[in-house]
């Protein structure tokens, strides 16, 4: 009833291939965008910005980058954390070498460096596939984190070996560093995430996206119909690492404020991979749903006992939290192995014919 598509006729190919051929979808997206751009910022507290809204957006973007590589082009990668690190360190070096640079431009440019590094580590994908490729990207993970530790130039010879985000302003308003307000940072993140998501949706629906999908589904067949595999795989690595690198720069500059090398170690790669898998490989929306489950839910769960007025020891709460989130992940993967995105699609299909199932 709510999702009835009857009566929505398409009279041209253009209309049929629109981003949202069904009105309700467009309406829903509109509601979400209004929430993200207007409602949340007006109602959220500092705590909500810092622990829920901004991190969910940043993790979603990182998962989106990984999803392009793993979900759309079928190349398994375990080096996401390190590529995020490349973006963050590139941004840090640019900002400290050229303090006049606009921070948003610097963040968008830092992805270029991680794209370059990503392509370099993507070259083995031309000869190896699947788990073997995962091991090759694992090498990138270990090598790059080691480099962040040992190459003192990267962190400006700071004694603690960590990078610290200086105060950066844009048109007289602080956007990064301790002086920046959470709301400004949220808007910068939201702007970049919206922009990149829009670009990625269109990329994956276009010619490039189709070559990626063909490569993923069967590379020999793809080659036979005239797809250049090298081009297809390396562009996937480049676009994916670009998005991941931007996410890494946002991660440090718009949220954490400081970072030590081991922040970009393998647990971060796994976390992003889990978000992509639980959200659904080969989907755009899944990344957001996955990030809400893995990043947002534990924070919300932590506030539940105190809101209900029950006193629970903090350590016990942490253990409970890990158990609840873990079992939810298993639960969702059992009821829908293809991720939350597929779950949503099934619900939507059911809704379009509801209440008459035939």
């Amino acid at each position, binding site marked *: 009833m*709510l*999702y009835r598509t009857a009566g929505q006729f398409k009279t041209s190919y253009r209309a049929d291939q629109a981003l949202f051929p069904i009105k309700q979808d467009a309406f*829903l997206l509109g509601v*979400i965008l209004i*929430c993200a751009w207007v409602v*949340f910022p007006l*109602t*959220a*507290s*500092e*705590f*909500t910005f*810092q*622990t*829920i809204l901004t991190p969910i957006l940043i993790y979603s973007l990182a998962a989106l980058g990984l999803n392009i590589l793993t979900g759309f082009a079928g190349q398994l990668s375990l080096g996401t954390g390190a590529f995020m690190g490349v973006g963050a360190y590139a941004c840090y070096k640019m900002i400290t070498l050229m303090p006049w640079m606009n921070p948003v431009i610097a963040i968008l440019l830092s992805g270029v460096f991680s794209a370059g590094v990503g392509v370099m580590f993507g070259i083995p994908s031309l000869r190896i596939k699947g788990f073997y490729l995962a091991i090759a990207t694992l090498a990138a993970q270990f090598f790059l984190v080691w480099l962040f*530790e040992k190459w003192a130039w990267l962190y400006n010879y700071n*004694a*603690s*070996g*960590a990078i*610290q985000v*200086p*105060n950066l302003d844009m048109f007289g308003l602080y956007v990064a*560093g*301790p*002086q920046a307000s959470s709301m400004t940072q949220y808007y910068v993140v939201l702007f970049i995430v919206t922009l990149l998501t829009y670009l990625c949706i269109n990329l994956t629906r276009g010619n490039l996206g189709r070559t990626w999908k063909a490569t993923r589904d069967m590379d020999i067949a793809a080659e036979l119909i005239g797809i250049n595999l090298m081009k297809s795989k390396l562009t996937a690595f480049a676009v994916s690492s670009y998005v991941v690198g931007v996410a890494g720069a946002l991660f440090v500059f718009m949220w*954490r*404020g*400081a970072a*030590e090398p*081991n*922040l970009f*170690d393998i647990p971060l790669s796994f976390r992003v991979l889990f978000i992509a898998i639980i959200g659904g490989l080969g989907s755009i929306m899944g990344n957001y*749903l996955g990030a*809400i489950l893995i990043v*947002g*839910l534990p*924070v*919300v769960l*932590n*506030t*539940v006992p*105190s*809101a209900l*007025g029950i006193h629970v*020891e*903090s*350590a016990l*709460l*942490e*253990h409970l939290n890990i158990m609840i989130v873990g079992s939810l992940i298993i639960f969702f993967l059992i009821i829908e192995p293809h991720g*939350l995105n597929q*779950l*949503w699609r099934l*619900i939507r299909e059911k*809704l379009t014919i509801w209440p008459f199932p035939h």
Partner: protein
Amino acid sequence: MKTFTKLALASALSLGLAAPAFAEGLFAPNLTYRTGPFASTGIPLMDGQKDYMTLLNERDGGIGGVMINFEECETGYSTEKGVECYERTKADAIVTQPWSTGITLQVLPKTNTDMIPILAPGYGFSPMANGKVFQWAFNPPVSYWDGASMIMQYLSGGDMGSLSGKKVVLLHLDHPFGKEPIPVLEAMAEAYGFELKLVPVGLKEMQNQSAQWLQIRRERPDYVVMWGWGAMNASAIAEAVKTKFPMENFVGVWWAGHDADLKQVGADGKGYKSISWSMPQPDSPLMADVKKYVIDAGKSTVEDPNSVFYQRGLVISMFLAEAISVAQAEFGVAEINAEQLRWGLENLNITDERLAELGMTGMVPPFSTSCSNHTGHSGAWMLEWDGEKFVKASDLLMPDAEFIAPLEEANSLEYAEANAPWPMNEACN
């Protein structure tokens, strides 16, 4: 729509519930780590901190008639969780106790705008001693740089010149905490002519240090100084025993002096030393009260109340309690706010008489803080493992202030410059 409703519900929940639970009294949260890889060393410290506040609440009805709401927020030593805890508690908190150098670095620039004092006793960023730059940060009673200075003085037997030509290995965790003493040790190596070799231990290698100890054997150093924490200490001590390194030439920082780490090697660890600014006093009047009001009343989770770390936890909470009472006396109000507590932390005066009143004689050396000196530089004792427990092996050692002060000044100004615009406390001189 279901997913969307869930989504909306989740966000509504988070928006509505974000306000932390507010209980009666002064809210002094502690960012603990009773879980994760550092839990074994964290738990006794956190127990000590909590039990001291419980004692004050039970015995005296709080401080100045106000109960202390000493709530814990679990971080598992993760910086991300730490920042979450900081954001969760900062609205009503009068202090933040970040309990990790990583979290301290992250929170340090924010405290200027949030106006909450950071209390990081014996850890954090050493230049925090310069109160003129770091208005809101306090690391009493000694900083890591003081620790490095005192260790080297002890090793030299009081005459730093005698170190000339010696070889010293710094076995350190490859993490901001482990890298803290490097600048001061490098400066000392240059000034006094000893050779400094850095042997980093990565976070992943903490429990397997065979490569590091192979390197140490090859280097044949005169001394090994250790900046270790958590699982790293136990493995380092076990490896040192295995490779038959002379234990009397092996010295750790105060966080590497955990009784349980040494108990596993027992008599083989005899001679191992750890510098410490606290000393367990099992027969002190304070311990009698803790036993009576807290442990016997079943309000504590402590396992070994006579361990170095548990009693250090008591001392840490004493700093906070003293700062609260100093601020209460100065401002004439019982329910002080964060800004008044900052004044209190800046005007701590822990004298021998005061320690005797508190029943804590000998648990910590006397010291005082001031506007420009947020550390206090109390000095510390060298503790030595006698095969069963830690015993005092030296008189009170004092850090070489003349050597450290210029470094503190330079590094704190460098920090302020990198984070410009950074507010200075011009009232100090």
